[in-house]
């Protein structure tokens, strides 16, 4: 290994300084609008060349786009993304909302509660937050407005409920997290299920509470017979079939996650054809899937060039050591990290934010938990290393999603306003505020009760 510091003349004299310079370079390029994947690859390339020399550094970087993408575990992403693009064509949204309305409409704010659970259900065939918000803006908002629901509640619930899709499997972002931290994809997917449901229940409870205090904003919708309720069930069965395929495959081991994803996508594809999807729409969905897939894979190899360099620079280890030695309680440090995510989330897309920060923050959180030898007794969080890794993943993904409903970006709010322009953007943001409170409660709940995230993977003993 050479030590001449080819570019800055520092090299292995001070690898941490090289690390800090290249992290600065990454953020500098990112602020100037260079695509995150390329900004990371440039900084990683520069750093590798500086630390280990031109030829070894460049050939290492040159091997990564192939080596880090031709992995079987990653082949789960394309079918998951495809499911998301086909889900709307499969026409399950209307039947979900219809069932939700008949079963839950009698509650205060019942239609809004129905919307939340219909969106959670739709999350079982889609991992895309903004897409879920778009679809339900179309079908749920007109109905709520017809029953004299307040515009703000109607818009807020749809924008916020969209975020449920990312935790409930299939979730592309959890697959990416699993890959970056080298954790089992199956475990992360399963782990997202209860927190997604928990989050939906908190949303539901907040709506019921709010609509009980101010009955005008969301009057109950009564008068459905049990016969009508039961007849609404078959319409949502396909959703359960897809969800069960994915969950039982991961749990029972009768198929790998990739095969389950393929099977799920196949079922949704058949449903979409039954529902009258045209070949042109299938082609569009496939082209969009390919485009989004290549974006995610580019991000993966770009970040991995950077991560390979970071590991040579020893910055992650140094940061972990520093954090563990801080005379502050681990929970406070965790809160500080999460606050950092809230701020970063104002400027960056969820996937990009996770990928850029995890190489540094993840080892630090694992070290806080007591390192590789931690046991529930010795860990300040009461978790084994594996549990801690799953738990942290669920929390940061939830955090990243909160940014979809908060200013200045709040893409979901713009989506609702885009589909229903008669509800002004300020109204959407005001309506969503109460769900931000719900999200804070959810995250606090996840921090205090890690079992919500770790229970399913632990009990089902997934590999």
């Amino acid at each position, binding site marked *: 290994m050479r030590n001449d510091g080819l570019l800055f003349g520092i090299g292995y004299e001070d690898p941490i300084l090289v690390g800090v310079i290249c992290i600065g370079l990454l953020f500098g390029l990112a602020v100037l609008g260079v695509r995150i994947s390329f900004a990371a690859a440039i900084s990683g390339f520069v750093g590798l060349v500086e630390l280990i020399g031109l030829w070894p550094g460049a050939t290492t970087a040159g091997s990564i786009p192939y080596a880090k993408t031709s992995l079987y575990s990653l082949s789960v992403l*394309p079918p998951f993304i495809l499911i998301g693009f086909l889900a709307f064509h499969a026409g399950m949204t209307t039947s979900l909302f219809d069932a939700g309305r008949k079963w839950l409409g009698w509650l205060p704010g019942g239609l809004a509660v129905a919307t939340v659970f219909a969106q959670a259900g739709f999350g079982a065939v889609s991992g895309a937050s903004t897409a879920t918000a778009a679809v339900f803006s179309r079908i749920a908002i007109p109905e709520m407005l017809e029953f004299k629901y307040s515009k703000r509640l109607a818009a807020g619930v749809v924008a916020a409920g969209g975020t449920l899709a990312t935790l409930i499997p299939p979730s592309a972002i959890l697959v990416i997290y699993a890959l970056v931290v080298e954790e089992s994809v199956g475990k992360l997917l399963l782990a997202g299920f209860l927190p997604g449901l928990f989050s939906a229940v908190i949303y539901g409870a907040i709506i019921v509470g709010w609509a009980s205090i101010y009955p005008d904003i969301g009057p109950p919708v009564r008068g459905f017979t049990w016969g009508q309720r039961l007849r609404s069930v078959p319409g949502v069965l396909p959703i359960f079939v897809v969800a069960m395929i994915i969950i039982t495959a991961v749990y029972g081991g009768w198929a790998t996650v990739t*095969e389950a994803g393929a099977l799920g996508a196949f079922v949704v594809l058949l449903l979409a054809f039954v529902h009258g999807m045209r070949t042109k729409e299938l082609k569009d969905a496939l082209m969009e899937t390919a485009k989004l897939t290549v974006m995610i894979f580019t991000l993966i190899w770009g970040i991995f060039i950077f991560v390979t360099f970071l590991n040579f620079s020893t910055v992650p280890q140094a940061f972990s050591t520093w954090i563990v030695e801080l005379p502050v309680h681990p929970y406070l440090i965790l809160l500080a990290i999460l606050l950092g995510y809230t701020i970063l989330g104002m400027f960056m897309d969820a996937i990009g934010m996770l990928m850029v920060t995890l190489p540094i923050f993840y080892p630090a959180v694992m070290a806080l938990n007591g390192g590789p030898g931690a046991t529930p007794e010795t860990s300040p969080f009461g978790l084994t290393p594996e549990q801690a890794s799953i738990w942290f993943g669920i929390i940061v993904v939830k955090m990243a999603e909160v940014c979809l409903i908060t200013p200045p970006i709040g893409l979901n709010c713009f989506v609702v306003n885009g*589909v*229903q322009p008669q509800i002004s953007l300020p109204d959407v943001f005001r309506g969503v505020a109460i769900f931000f409170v719900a999200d804070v409660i959810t995250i606090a709940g996840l921090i205090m009760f890690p079992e919500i995230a770790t229970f399913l993977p632990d009990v089902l003993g997934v590999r």
Partner: protein
Amino acid sequence: MAVADDALGRVVVAGERLLRPVENTLNFIAAVAVLFLMMLGVVQVVMRIRWLFAAPIYGYIDMIELAMPILAVLGISYAQRHGTHIRMEILILQLKGRVLWVIETFGSLVTLILIVLLTRFAWVFFHDAYLSGDSTTDALLLTWPSKLLVPMALAILSVRLLIQTIAGLRLVIDPTREPIGVVVPHDVAEQAREEIREALGEEGPQ
């Protein structure tokens, strides 16, 4: 496609005319591969059922791994053209005119340099596999054809970035010209409309 009456503009238009069909075709191949991957998964599950066929596809995992670059890199230039690769837009959206295009062109140029270097060294990675006859562990399939896809796709991305750099320079020289061959930054409202179009398969309100 837009028409340009200046020299640089004509270069950009000509480049676009050559590159677009190539990019579209490559992304279409990736799209077909998505469908193929899905079908292969379904077939694998069915064929493995013990009481039915008990005959899983030989070398299934190796095949998928070798096919991954089709999905992972072939469409990279198509995605670049559409501005799909994510980025921070907080600064870009505040800028207008010449300053905007100076920053954008700088971004294209540094990315171009990176991709040219990576093309070169991904080629080295392919070439080593080709010379040594490297193969997968289970089914002993040769890896070089799959590894060749990476420098190929990156070379096409280099051409795309070269066009974007030239197109950017053209706008640096005269920001009043019609932007062609560049990705015009979208604000959040426009991004939302894009998301809606993708999710609902059409534009705008009902």
